[in-house]
C-alpha cells in the first residue's frame, strides 16, 4: 500500500465538499430527510456521484435511535459503501467523525468518505423529552435522579470557573451577543435578530448563572462533508492534524472544574499539524453555552484566562477581527441539531478557507483550529484545517 504524504511529511486528506441545511424549525422533515438533504449538497460541492463514495461515517439521532444508522442511511440514500458505521461522542461527535475519516483516508481504507449528520431534534419530539434525553449524559444513579439537567451541569462548572478567573455574567453575555451578530449575516441561522448584553442578562433564568440566551437552542438541521484522498473538487481544504482527550464522563468525577482536556487535545492536533498556535487565523469552537465557549477559548489559549468576554466586546472575534470565530453564528445562534451542531462549524470553516463565506468572509483565513467537546467538557476533539492553495 502506498501512503501519500505531503512534502513536509504530513498525512494527506482533503475535505472536498460541504453541505448544510438551514437550522431551526423545519417541520415535516425526518432525520433521514435532513441527512439526505445535507449529503446531496456535499456531494454536489465535492463534484462526486453516489458511486464515488466508498466510505460512510455518521453519528446518531435522538429522534431516530437505531443500532445501525449508517446502513439505514446508506440504503435510504442509495449508497453501497465498502466501509460504514456510526459513532457516538455527544457534542464532540461531528469533529470525531471528521478525524476518523481523515485517518481512514490516510490509511487507505477508503477514497471518498461521506460524513453526515441530521436530526429533527426540535420538531421531532417534545421540549421535555429533548431535555430529559440530553440529561442522560449525567450519571443515572448519582446525578440524573437529583433533577439535574445539561444546563445545570454547565451551571455548576460555570460557578466555579467564574469564581476562579473573575468572569462575570456580562462577560459571558458578550459571546452570546457576538454569535447573534454573526448569525445575522447568515441566511440559514435559526436566530438572526440582534441582541444586547442587557437582553442576555435579562433573559429567563435556566440554571444559574446561565440564562436562556446563554444556552444554545434545540434545532432541526443537517450537515455533511466529504473527506477524500484526492484533492478533486474546486473547493478542497486540507486536514493538517487532529487530536482528542477524554478526562471523565460525569461532572461529579471531573478531575477539575477549571482545567479540562481541551489544551491536551489541541496540543496533539497542533503537533500533528506541525504548526504554531499563533499561526491560526480562524477559530471554530464549540459553544453549547456561553461558558463552554469561554472556557474552551481560554484553556486553548485563544483568549487570556478571564478575558474572552472582553476580547469579544473589543471585536477580536468578529468576522473582520484578528481571530474570526464561528462566523455562521455557532450553536448559540445558527442552532444545535445534535451531531450536526458542530458539523456546521466545520462547514463554515471550510467556506472561510475556500473564500466562499460571502458577507462573512474573513480577510485572511488560511489556517483554522476547530475544537469540540462532548458531555460536560468531558470529551475533546480538535482539528486543524488548512486552505489548499
Amino acid at each position, binding site marked *: 500500500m502506498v501512503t501519500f504524504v505531503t512534502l513536509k511529511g504530513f498525512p494527506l486528506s482533503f475535505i472536498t465538499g460541504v453541505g448544510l441545511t438551514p437550522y431551526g424549525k423545519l417541520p415535516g422533515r425526518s432525520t433521514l430527510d435532513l441527512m439526505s438533504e445535507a449529503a446531496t449538497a456535499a456531494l454536489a460541492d465535492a463534484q462526486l456521484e453516489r458511486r464515488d463514495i466508498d466510505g460512510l461515517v455518521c453519528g446518531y439521532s435522538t429522534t431516530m435511535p437505531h443500532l445501525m444508522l449508517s446502513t439505514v442511511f446508506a440504503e435510504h440514500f442509495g449508497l453501497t459503501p465498502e466501509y460504514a458505521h456510526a459513532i457516538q461522542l455527544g457534542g464532540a461527535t461531528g469533529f470525531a467523525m471528521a478525524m476518523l475519516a481523515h485517518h481512514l483516508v490516510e490509511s487507505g481504507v477508503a477514497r471518498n468518505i461521506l460524513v453526515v449528520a441530521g436530526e429533527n431534534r426540535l420538531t421531532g419530539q417534545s421540549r421535555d423529552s429533548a431535555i430529559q434525553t440530553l440529561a442522560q449524559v449525567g450519571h443515572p444513579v448519582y446525578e440524573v435522579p437529583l433533577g*439535574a439537567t445539561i444546563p445545570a451541569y454547565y451551571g455548576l462548572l460555570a460557578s466555579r470557573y467564574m469564581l476562579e478567573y473573575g468572569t462575570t455574567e456580562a462577560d459571558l453575555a458578550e459571546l452570546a451577543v457576538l454569535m447573534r451578530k454573526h448569525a445575522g449575516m447568515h441566511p440559514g441561522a435559526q436566530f438572526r435578530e440582534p441582541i444586547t448584553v442587557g437582553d442576555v442578562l435579562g433573559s429567563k433564568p435556566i440554571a*444559574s448563572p*446561565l440564562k436562556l440566551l446563554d444556552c444554545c437552542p434545540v434545532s432541526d438541521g443537517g450537515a455533511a462533508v466529504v473527506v477524500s484522498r484526492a484533492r478533486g473538487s474546486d473547493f478542497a481544504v486540507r486536514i493538517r492534524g487532529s487530536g482528542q482527550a477524554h478526562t471523565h464522563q460525569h461532572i*461529579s468525577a471531573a478531575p477539575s472544574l477549571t482545567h479540562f482536556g481541551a489544551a491536551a487535545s489541541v496540543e496533539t492536533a497542533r503537533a500533528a499539524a506541525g504548526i504554531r498556535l499563533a499561526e491560526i487565523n480562524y477559530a471554530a469552537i464549540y459553544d453549547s453555552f456561553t461558558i463552554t465557549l469561554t472556557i474552551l477559548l481560554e484553556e486553548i489559549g485563544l483568549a487570556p484566562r478571564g478575558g474572552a468576554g472582553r476580547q469579544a466586546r473589543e471585536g477580536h472575534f468578529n468576522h473582520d477581527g484578528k481571530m474570526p470565530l464561528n462566523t455562521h453564528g455557532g450553536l448559540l445562534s445558527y442552532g444545535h441539531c445534535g451531531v450536526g451542531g458542530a458539523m456546521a462549524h466545520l462547514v463554515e470553516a471550510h467556506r472561510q478557507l475556500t473564500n466562499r463565506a460571502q458577507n462573512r468572509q474573513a480577510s485572511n483565513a488560511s489556517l483554522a483550529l476547530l475544537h469540540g467537546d462532548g458531555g460536560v467538557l468531558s470529551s475533546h476533539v480538535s482539528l486543524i484545517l488548512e486552505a489548499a492553495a
Partner: protein
Amino acid sequence: MSVLDWTKDGDGIVYQACGNCQAIWYFQRNFCPKCGTSAPATLQASGQGTVHARTLVARAPTQEWRAHAPYLIVLVEADEGFRLMAHGDAALQIGDRVLARFAQLAGRKIPYFEKVTG
C-alpha cells in the same frame, strides 16, 4: 457492617477506598479505577464537606421536579476526599462548610446540604 446509602434509600453517603493505592472515589464499583485492585472498602462518609460549585435550577427537567423549582444543586468536596452532587439550601455559596441531611424530594431520597454555623 452495612452502610447507609441515599441511592438505596438510606440516610447516608457512601464512598470507596482502595487498600492498595489509597485512591478514594464516589461512584461504586468492585475494583479500584486507579490501580485495578479488587474488593475496595465501601465506607460511610461523615456528610461533612465544602461547597465546590453551585447552580440554582429554574428550568426543571420533568413535571415532578417542576413543583420544586427553583432548587439548588451543589457539588460538595467531601472531607474524605471525593466530590458528590447533591441538593442544598438556596443561600449556599462556594466555600461554605456544609453538613448533609437526607430529604424526600420528587418521590425519592436525596442528600441535602446545609451550612454549618459557628
